[in-house]
């Protein structure tokens, strides 16, 4: 979240992808960093222990959200 906001501030569009269990923390960081409406693409927790198939599933969930955040459609 921190990194996405910093990249956005430097003029590059950025999207943070985080797992649902960390949504509240992401929102708190966005608030603190002065961009409370900064959007997040949410995927199901966890990520670190997943195999390729499950990771692909998470990516499929994330892509339309990222697309919508970046393009508005």
């Amino acid at each position, binding site marked *: 979240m*921190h990194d996405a906001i910093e990249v956005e501030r430097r003029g590059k569009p950025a999207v943070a992808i985080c797992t649902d269990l960390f949504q509240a*923390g992401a929102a*708190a*960081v966005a608030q*603190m*960093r002065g961009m409370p409406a900064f959007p997040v693409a949410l995927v199901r927790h966890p990520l*670190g222990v997943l195999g390729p198939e499950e990771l692909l599933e998470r990516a499929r969930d994330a892509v339309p959200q990222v697309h919508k955040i970046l393009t508005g459609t």
Partner: protein
Amino acid sequence: MEAGIGQYIDLLERYYAEGVTDGLPVVPPVRALVDQAVAAAGRAADEVVGAIPPRGALVTVEDIAVNAVMAGCRPEYLPVVLAAVEAMLADSFNLFHLVTSTKGCAPLLVVNGPIRQALGINARGNIFGPGHRANATIGRAIRLSIINLGGAVSQVVDRATHGHPGKYTYCIAEDEADSPWEPYHVARGYARDQSTVFVQACEGPKAVNVPTSDRAEAILDCLADMACPLGSYTFTGATELVVILGKEHREAVARAGYTRRMVQEYIHARAARRAGELRRVDSVFPQVTAAASDDEPVPLVRSPDHVHVFAAGGPGRMSSVVNGFVSVDLGVSSMRAIGFST
């Protein structure tokens, strides 16, 4: 008098309600105490110290002084607190990662130089235990600054899975007066009469008990073994290590001719697991992935320079090892001179 105490109790409850404590009562930061602390630091109240993550707002000397008073610090402790905060704000320290990570590590402070004795920072028995105001409150001032100024609220932004008790307070000193080696800060190039604070993001301390051998290698092998559990091999890569040799252990090790440098090299080489052992627990530690055979030793610590050896602790055949947080490429310990004149 009773009315005053009632107001004080009400105030403590208000601090709890506002979420500006670590869960323990705090000292009300009345103006006189804050001013005394700022004066003791010899710096302007409105001098900017830096931006404490995760909030990242600029904080001043006075902001840190408020939290030091709340933690129970005497005014003269503030220079140590300020130096520790400044050490943690070095980019290479990566404080943001530390205070938000699930790993739940905490900044460990080790103080060297004349200020140890001036402030009474305990370097002998029970260094990680209770009963010593300077240790307890300087470490606590760091935590309150992280919570109140940095905004690392537990379970919201501070996402430690477990955390550890050092997140309340984690401050010790080196026992320079009773060490076979030169003070740690002198080994790092500081003048002996310069006070310093070393800060490293750390797991909790682990007691290393070697009660029946006076042999240096027996003691060092036990330290190295305790330093490299499978569960401390992070996926990010080789870390740092703090080794604190208790009085009887360091005397035995020094009697056998070991310098601090030799201890660093010995432990670095032996705080290692075979690649095969790590593969059996699905480790993706970078050196495991790269290892040519299962028999290849994989050191947990990046280099001998990343084994930080201190002399501290009272009588008894005990020492401590304290594992680091993440790869030294992502976050590394920091040292800072303390602005203080004896």
